[in-house]
């Protein structure tokens, strides 16, 4: 299907927003005009849901990465849009360490990525602490994938749990090249961006051009903290990245990231967590900056939230805040909590740390809040139902 026909066809599709929160998951079913939303939930009330993903290969299978405050992590699967859930028989878990040595335990599965269209039952999962796992049976049994989980060099780059983000270091942004199922990317907070050309048998760092916090050695991958990496579906040779130290673009075959966030307004800066790419225009992307000054408040800068969009691959950025609070709004957005649909014009969605769900039906020009009073939102995905 071409990009243009994809845009016209998708306006007849059934859209669902998959909202994962600190206290459960919700599905918001949209009408054909994206003007009304039917709420389905909560699912897994009280569970910490890090990611809820619909399989684009069949348009009906859902996977949910779950844990509770007390109990260990697991993954649930549904093939009836959440009417019933089946728990993974073997959730992601590290290999048991040899006697007398300290082994790692998965605290939670953080990121779920369906594998290539040619591998219909295969999924990848990224965990906290950093681990990469794969399921070949639709998410029911999981096994460590690639040698990186136990590789001494990778373990050094992953650092300790004290080096990670406040709720644990994470492996995220698992990306499958739509042209080649063996071409994979992932990112680690911390630990950098990595690429495989051989289906995960080996990975190599992809961090040239990425900056680290002043005073730290950029040649040491442990100091690299990519927050979110996205591949452009309309040009799989182009990737964008929101990093702890700026916004970047990478045009393959180059291996050097270019910091495109330098053109953001100085008073806003170019630090944040999510990054969204346009489904049909590789020059267009959105970010949602946060306050990364002083002690890193991780709030909207000045209490005035706004998205910023580029239409020219990062040469310029436009502030998009029409409809958002004009002040005293101190929320922000986590790395998985902003996404786009495939309508024309594209709809942009985000969920806030304060439990609000927002959308724009016109590529960010105007925003409206479509749900309030949810728990802290961890992830939002926009998906087409079969």
């Amino acid at each position, binding site marked *: 299907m071409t990009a243009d026909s994809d845009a016209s066809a998708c306006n007849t599709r059934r859209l669902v927003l998959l909202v994962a929160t600190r206290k459960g998951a919700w599905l918001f079913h949209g009408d054909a005009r994206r003007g009304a939303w039917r709420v389905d939930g909560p699912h897994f009330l009280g569970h910490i849901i890090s990611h809820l993903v619909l399989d684009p290969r069949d348009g009906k299978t859902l996977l949910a990465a779950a844990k509770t405050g007390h*109990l*260990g992590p697991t993954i649930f699967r549904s093939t009836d849009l959440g009417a019933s859930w089946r728990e993974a028989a073997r*959730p992601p878990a590290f290999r*048991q360490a040899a006697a007398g040595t300290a082994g790692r335990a998965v605290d939670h599965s953080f990121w779920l990525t369906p594998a290539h269209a040619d591998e219909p039952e295969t999924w990848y999962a990224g965990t906290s602490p950093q681990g990469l796992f794969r399921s070949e049976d639709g998410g029911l049994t999981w096994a460590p994938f690639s040698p990186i989980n136990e590789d001494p060099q990778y373990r050094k780059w992953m650092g300790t749990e004290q080096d990670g983000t406040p709720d644990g270091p994470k492996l995220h942004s698992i990306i499958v090249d739509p042209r080649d199922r063996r071409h994979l990317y992932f990112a680690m907070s911390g630990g950098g961006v990595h690429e495989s050309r051989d289906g995960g048998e080996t990975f190599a760092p992809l961090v040239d051009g990425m900056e680290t916090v002043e005073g730290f050695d950029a040649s040491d991958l442990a100091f690299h903290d990519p927050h979110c990496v996205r591949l452009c579906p309309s040009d799989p040779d182009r990737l964008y990245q929101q990093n702890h130290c700026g916004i970047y673009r990478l045009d393959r075959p180059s291996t050097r990231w270019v910091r495109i966030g330098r053109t953001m307004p100085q008073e806003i800066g170019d630090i944040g967590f999510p990054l969204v790419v346009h489904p049909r225009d590789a020059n267009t992307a959105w970010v949602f900056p946060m306050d990364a000054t002083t002690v890193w408040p991780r709030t909207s800068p000045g209490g005035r939230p706004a998205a910023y969009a580029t239409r020219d691959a990062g040469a310029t950025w436009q502030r998009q805040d029409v409809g958002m609070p004009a002040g005293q709004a101190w929320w922000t957005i986590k790395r998985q909590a902003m996404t786009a649909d495939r309508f024309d014009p594209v709809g942009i969605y985000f969920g806030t740390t304060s439990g609000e769900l927002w959308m724009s039906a016109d590529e960010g020009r105007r925003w409206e809040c479509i749900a309030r009073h949810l728990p802290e939102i961890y992830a939002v995905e926009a998906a087409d139902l079969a």
Partner: protein
Amino acid sequence: MKVLIPGGLHSYTGAARVEASGATLREVLGDLDRRYPGIRFRMVDEQQRLRPHVRLFFAGEPLRDLDRPLRPDGELIILQALSGG
């Protein structure tokens, strides 16, 4: 032996009190997992450590060692320690 299951794990057992057998805590948890697949991993991680907020008691004594022998006539109590917000 009798096992008292906390509310967070009733989705596995469907009941607060169930039966399981074994000479040690490890064996009892293994038997529970055979009867209720998946329940053990929610309590014990892949390095065979009890998860931080899971507490086990037998005859009034807290248990941390999976190889602790258990009498068949006792009751194993599983608790979720309060945590989080």
